[in-house]
C-alpha cells in the first residue's frame, strides 16, 4: 500500500486566478477503502475550491467522527482544520464562524455523525443559519465501525449481513428544508459534474448551505439489496444538471431559450439550472418538499439544487456583530477606554 502520493504533477495543469493549480488544494493520500464514494467527494471539494479560486489559507475544514469525517485530511492540506468529536462539529463550527466571520467554512460529516449522535447539534446549526457549507457523505451506514445501519438507511434496505432494515430512514434534505435551511441540495459522489458546481454555489452562499451527498460505502454497503450502492443510486438518480458562474465571470455556455433558469446569489454569482429542471422553483420551500416527496414516491432520487434563499441573514448578521472578525478586534477596540464609557453612560441618562 502506498502511503505517499508522488510529488510530480502534470506540467500543464491549469491555474486559477490566484496562480494555484488544483494540486495546491490536495491533501494527504487517502486511507479510506479503495473506491469509497467519500474520496470522490474530497476530490469534488478540492476541485470546487480550486475553480472558485479560494485561497487555501482562508478555508477551515471541520468534521466529526466517521470515515466521512476523516475526509478533510485528504483535501486542502494547506487549510485550517478541526476534527472534533462525534456529532459535535456543529458547535465547533458555530464558534469558529462567530470568532472569524471571514473564513470559508466547510463541514464534512456522515449520516451517522449527523443523523444519529449529532442530530441535536445539526438542527441548531440550521436554526442559527451559520455561514458554512455542510456536506453529509451519506452511505446509509456506519462505515468506520463496520457497516451497521445508520438512521438514513432506507426502509427495506438489506445490510451486508442480510438483515432487512425495519425503520424508515431520515431524509436529511427534507429535514433541512423543514428547519428553514437557506440552501438545500442533494447530489451523488459519482456525479462530479453536478456536485462541483453545487459545492461552489454553497460556498458562495451566505448562510447555512446543506448538501446531502449519496456516497456509497464499497466495503459494507455496495451489495445487491443495498439502496445506497453505486448501481442502485445510478439506476434511480434523477439529476438536475447545473452550472455555477461566479460573480464577475462571463457566461460562456449557450443555453437554448426556455431550457434554463438562472438563480442569482447574494454576491452576484449565478447558478444555471439546465433543461428539465427549468421550471423548478428553487425559491419555493414548499415546492421543494413536494418535489422530494414526489420523486420518492416514484422511486427516484432527486438530485440538484432543491432550495435557495439568496437573501438569508446569517448568524453574524442576525446577532448584529461587528463587521470586523471578532478575533481581530484588539484591546483598544474591545475596551475603548473610560471616555467612550462616559459618553455611553451619558447617552443613557
Amino acid at each position, binding site marked *: *500500500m*502506498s502511503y*505517499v*502520493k*508522488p*510529488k*510530480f*504533477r*502534470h*506540467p*500543464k*495543469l*491549469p491555474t486559477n486566478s490566484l496562480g494555484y493549480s*488544483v494540486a495546491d488544494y490536495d491533501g494527504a*493520500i*487517502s486511507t479510506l*477503502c*479503495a*473506491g*469509497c*464514494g467519500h*474520496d*470522490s467527494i*474530497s*476530490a469534488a471539494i478540492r476541485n470546487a475550491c480550486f475553480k472558485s479560486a479560494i485561497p487555501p489559507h482562508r478555508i477551515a475544514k471541520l468534521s466529526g467522527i466517521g470515515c466521512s469525517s476523516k475526509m478533510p485530511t485528504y483535501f486542502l492540506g494547506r487549510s485550517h482544520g478541526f476534527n472534533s468529536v462525534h456529532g459535535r462539529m456543529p458547535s465547533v463550527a458555530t464558534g469558529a464562524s462567530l470568532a472569524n466571520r471571514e473564513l470559508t467554512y466547510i463541514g464534512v460529516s456522515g449520516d451517522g455523525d449527523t443523523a444519529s449522535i449529532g442530530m441535536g447539534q445539526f438542527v441548531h446549526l440550521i436554526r442559527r443559519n451559520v455561514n458554512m457549507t455542510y456536506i453529509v457523505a451519506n452511505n446509509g451506514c456506519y462505515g468506520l465501525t463496520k457497516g451497521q445501519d445508520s438512521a438514513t438507511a432506507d426502509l427495506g434496505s438489506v445490510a451486508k449481513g442480510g438483515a432487512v432494515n425495519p425503520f424508515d430512514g431520515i431524509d436529511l434534505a427534507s429535514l433541512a428544508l423543514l428547519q428553514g435551511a437557506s440552501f438545500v441540495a442533494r447530489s451523488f*459522489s*459519482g456525479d*462530479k459534474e453536478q456536485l462541483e458546481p453545487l459545492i461552489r454555489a454553497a460556498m458562495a452562499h451566505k448562510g447555512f448551505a446543506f448538501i446531502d451527498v449519496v456516497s*456509497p460505502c*464499497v466495503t459494507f454497503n455496495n451489495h445487491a439489496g443495498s439502496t445506497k450502492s*453505486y*448501481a442502485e443510486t*445510478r439506476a434511480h438518480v434523477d439529476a438536475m444538471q447545473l452550472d455555477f458562474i461566479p460573480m464577475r465571470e462571463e457566461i460562456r455556455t449557450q443555453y437554448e431559450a426556455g431550457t434554463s433558469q438562472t438563480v442569482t446569489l447574494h454576491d452576484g454569482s449565478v447558478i444555471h439550472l439546465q433543461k428539465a429542471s427549468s421550471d423548478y422553483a428553487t425559491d419555493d420551500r414548499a415546492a421543494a418538499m413536494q418535489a422530494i416527496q414526489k420523486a420518492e414516491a416514484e422511486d427516484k432520487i432527486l438530485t440538484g439544487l432543491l432550495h435557495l434563499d439568496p437573501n438569508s441573514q446569517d448568524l453574524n448578521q442576525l446577532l448584529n456583530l461587528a463587521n470586523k472578525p471578532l478575533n481581530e478586534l484588539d484591546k483598544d477596540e474591545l475596551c475603548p477606554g473610560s471616555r467612550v464609557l462616559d459618553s455611553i453612560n451619558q447617552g443613557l441618562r
Partner: protein
Amino acid sequence: MKPTNVTDPEYFHKVVDCQFACPAHTPVPAYIRLISQQRYTDAYLVNWESNVFPGVLGRTCDRPCEPVCRRGRVEEEPVAICRLKRVAADFKEDVSSRLPRAGKPNGKKIALIGGGPASLTVARDLAPLGYELHLYDANAKAGGFMRSEIPSFRLPESVLDEEVGYVMDMGITAHFNTYVDSMADILTNGYDAVFVGSGAPRGRDLPKLPGRKKADKNIHIGLDWLANVAFEHTKKIGKKVIVLGGGNTAMDCCRTSRRLGGEDVKVIVRSPFEDMKASPWEKEDAIHEGIPIIDNHVPKEFVLKKGKLVGMTFEKVEPKYHEDGRRELVPTGEEPAFFECDDVLIAIGQENAFPWIEKETGIRFTSWGTPIINDDETFQSTRKDVFFGGDAAFGPANIITAVAHGHKAAVSIDLYCRGKDLEKRPAPNVTLISQKMGIHEWSYDSIPVNDKREAVPLVELGEALKDRDLEVELGFDLETAFVQAERCLNCDAQTVFTADSCIECDACADICPTSCINFIQNAPEEELRANLMVPADDPEQDIYVSQTLNTGKVLVKDEDVCLHCGLCAERCPTAAWDMKLFTYNVAKATPDLMEVS
C-alpha cells in the same frame, strides 16, 4: 474514438518511450530495475542481448532514449539511461559462461565486409545457428570506427576489446589487415550471403578553398587524423589548432588535439551554436576542456606566410529562419575574421564510398552514393545475396543504429539462406504479466523517488589533458547508481484497464497525481483530446480509450505523463486497473539468445 487495441504489442511498446526510441529497442526499464536490485550481471546480459556492446554504448551512445524519457516530462532531467548501462558493464561479474556459443555447423558460409558494430552484430546473431562467418577488415583488429575514431579517453581500448572479443570468440574467422578491393572476387568465394558493414569512411574536404593545396602539410581530414592518432601514427599537433565543423567528429578532434600538444584549440563552425550537430553533452565536454566554440563563421581562406600555414579567414554570418523551416546563413557584411593557427582539422562530414564494388555485381547505388536497399527491414540490396547495414546502408549514423541494422540483416540472411520469404518477419517476443503481489502491493518500486539527476564525476582536468588514453568519466559509484536507477518510472509496468469490471466510482481519476485519467463522453480523437481535464496536446503520445461504460461514458487515459505509480490500480475497488509488466524483445535470428529471469 474507437477503443484502444491493447493486444497490438506496438501500443504498449510505444508507452515505454525509451525502449521505443532505442533503435535496437533495448528493454531499458528492465535493466535499470536489475541495477537497483544490484543484479549487475543480469542487467548487463539484458543489454548485451539487445545491443551487443553495453560497455561501449554505456560510454558513447548517442542515447536517443534520453530526450524522450518520460521523467524529463515531469521534471527537469531524464533518467541517466546511458550511464546506467555503463554501471551494469562496470560492476558485472564474469559473463563468459552465460554467453551463447557457436552452434553446430549448418553448412552455410557468410562473408562480413568491415568489422564495425554492424558486422559484429550480424556475426553474434548468426553464430549460434551454426553459420560459418568470415569477417574482413582493413585494420588489425575488429571494432570499426569504435576503435579507429572514438578516442580512448571516451572509450578505453580494454572495454572495446572485451566486447569485440565476446563476438569474435564465437568462432568467427577473422581476415584482418585485409582491405577488400573487389566485391566480384568475394562473390566467387562460395559465400551463401555477403553482409557489407564497411561504414561511411570518407571524410569531407574543402578542396576549393584558397590555400588548401599549398597548406596541405598542416591541414588534416578529421576522420583520417583521428584514425592515425588511434593507431599511433600521429602523436603531435601544433600549439594553435582550428577545428572546422560542428559535429561529434569535430568535438573528438578538438579534445584529442588538446591532448597532443594543442594549447590554443578552437572549434569554428558555420552554423549557430544551437544548431550544431554535436550532442549537447559533447559540446559541454569540449567547453569544459577549455575549447571555445566560435559559431556563425564560414571558412573563406587558408592564409600562408612564406609557404607555411599561419591562419584562416572566415566570413561572419547570421542565421535567418524561413517560414518553411529552412535556414539561411546571411553574411553580416562585417570584415572577415582572421584566426591564427598552426594546424587545421577538417571535420565537416563524412560520406559513403564503395570504390571496391563493381557495377557488374548487380549492386546498384543511389545518386547519394548509398546502396539501393529493399527497405529498412530486410536490408537486402539489388543483388539478392548481398545485404548492407550500419553506416554503409544509409550513411553515417551511430553505433546503436548499426547494431539495430545488424539484427535485422541477420534475420534476413538467415531467412534467405533457409529459402524463406524475407518479407515475413518474425514477430517480437511479447509478454504482459500482472505485477500484483498482494492487496495494494506491486513487484516494483511503484512510487517514484524525488531525487534529481546527477552528472557522472570526471577526472581532474589537468590529469585528463596529459594522457590521451586516460578515461575522462569515472562512472557512477554504486550508491549513486542506485539512486539514479530508482529515478526510472518503470514505464513498462503498464496500466491495463478492463471496462467490464469498472463501477465508475472515479477513485482512479481522483487519485492520479498527474491527472491522466478521465471519465468523459466519447468523441472523435481531436475533440476527445481537447476535452480532457488537462488536454492531451501531444499527438505523439497516445490516449488509451476504453469500451463504453455503463453510464455511457468512456475512460480516457492520456499516456503522456503517467508515472506508472500504480495508484489508480491501488485505489480501484474492483481491480479494473492492473499494473502489468510488458516485455518486448525484438526478434533476433537466434530466438532465445540468453536467459535472464
